[in-house]
């Protein structure tokens, strides 16, 4: 005799739902509460390091979307390339991370932040100054384990102290 048919099934279900009254909600109220993302997130398009960049244009060649525009000039006195223009149309970026992996001088990073919404398409085209690292645009640990080690651990919905941040 299966008692599930005699109302026990409904009673079991009712006890499950009533126990949820004591459970913490899993909702994160986004603008006020944020979760830490993965440390290796391919978040904000690109972070560019002006000092390390040699203007070799490897990134522009690997980019499957062809959105990296780099213009260099030769400086005779210093005997090296000078980067005149480094421009990324991030509206077309697919976050594949190939440019970061390809850069032979580790001058490119994926970003750790993720809020990229803009009002105009033109604002998505980032040039030299806009691509530099800042407090809002930290590099993520993608393809850079030494950076990943410095970032906070990812928080999951199940974590207890989640609501406090």
């Amino acid at each position, binding site marked *: 005799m299966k008692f599930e*048919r005699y109302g026990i099934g409904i009673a079991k279900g009712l006890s499950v*739902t009533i126990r949820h009254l004591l459970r913490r909600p899993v909702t994160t109220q986004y603008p006020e509460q944020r979760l830490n993302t993965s440390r290796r997130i391919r978040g904000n398009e690109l972070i560019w390091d002006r000092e390390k960049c040699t203007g070799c244009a490897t990134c522009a060649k690997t980019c499957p979307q062809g959105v990296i525009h780099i213009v260099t000039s030769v400086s005779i006195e210093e005997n090296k390339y000078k980067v005149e223009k480094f421009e990324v149309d991030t509206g077309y970026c697919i976050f594949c991370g190939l440019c970061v992996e390809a850069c032979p001088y580790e001058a490119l990073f994926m970003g750790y932040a993720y809020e990229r919404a803009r009002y105009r398409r033109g604002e998505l085209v980032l040039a030299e100054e806009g691509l530099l690292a800042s407090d809002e645009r930290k590099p993520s640990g993608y393809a850079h384990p030494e950076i990943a080690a410095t970032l906070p651990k990812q928080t999951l919905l199940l974590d207890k102290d989640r609501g406090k941040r």
Partner: protein
Amino acid sequence: MTMAALPPDWPGGFWLHWGVFVVVIFVFVMATIMGFIWFERRAMAIMQARLGPNRAGPFGVLQPVADGIKVMLKEDIVPAKGDKVVHWLAPVVAFVPALMIFAVVPFQGGAILADLNIGILYIVAISSVTTVGVFMAGWASNNKYSLLGAMRQVASVVSYEIPVVLSIVGVVLLAGSLSMQQIVMAQDIPFILLQPLGFLLFFIGALAEINRAPFDLMEADSEIVAGFHTEYSGMKFALFYLVEYGEALAISAIVTTLFLGGWRGPLLLPWLWFLIKVILVFFVIVWIRTTVPRIRIDQLMALAWKFLFPLALINLIITAVEILVWPAGSLWVLVPINIAVMIVLVLLWSRFFKLGWGKVEV
């Protein structure tokens, strides 16, 4: 109509009483419906590990107000090929009876708009009129989903009215009166203990009559969009929304009055007891909504005619026999007997219960 339950020192007499209570009931119903909308959304959210509305006002209590303002600003759309007059009339026909039920609900001794000597019969009669409004809405919308939802509603109300009324008769037999006030007065032992099976049947049937989950298949969004109010927007939709919660409030109040001893209880004020019990019953309704999945139309019909109806008849016969042969004054002995009878009957009938000539097992 008897006015016997009025306190003799009531100032002003009949018309003042009438005026005051119409206002009180209207305010009470509107405020409680608002509260219930908020309460249901919050309670359901917590049971589903969510937060629910918490932006408008403290803990989101103003959410129903915000919803109301939003819905009133919406465009009122009438289907081009719909029956325009009926479409306009349907929400009113559905809403007014839901409000009229509260005329005979006693909030405490004497605090009642009209202590009809046929109070519960009046409720049974008037609450069915809401269905006419729903059917008008389904018909006038000129939409297959609306009509299907309305047909389901009519079918379910016609079927479930019978077990509901039969279980009410059990209560009336015990109380010896149809007046809501007298029924509460008679409950030295709450009738949920003397009529456990009747309570179960009444509660299930009532859930089906007011389209609450798991019997909300007349507005099953997964199959027929929104049922009868698919083509409604703006204030008309708001009225249907109010009907839904008004009926839930009415059923909570009726269950409280018939089975839970109405306003009676120790220590606290009578009307506070009434309110606490109403909210408790409503919480159970919400609880069931979060738990039980929606059933099919054939299951709905089978449950009414093969399960609730025979059990209601048996319950009525048992109650009648008990009242005839049982000596007065020892009703407490009946409580364990009736609970045992309920368990045996429910188990037995669950064993018999089959869908579609028994070819499909539940």
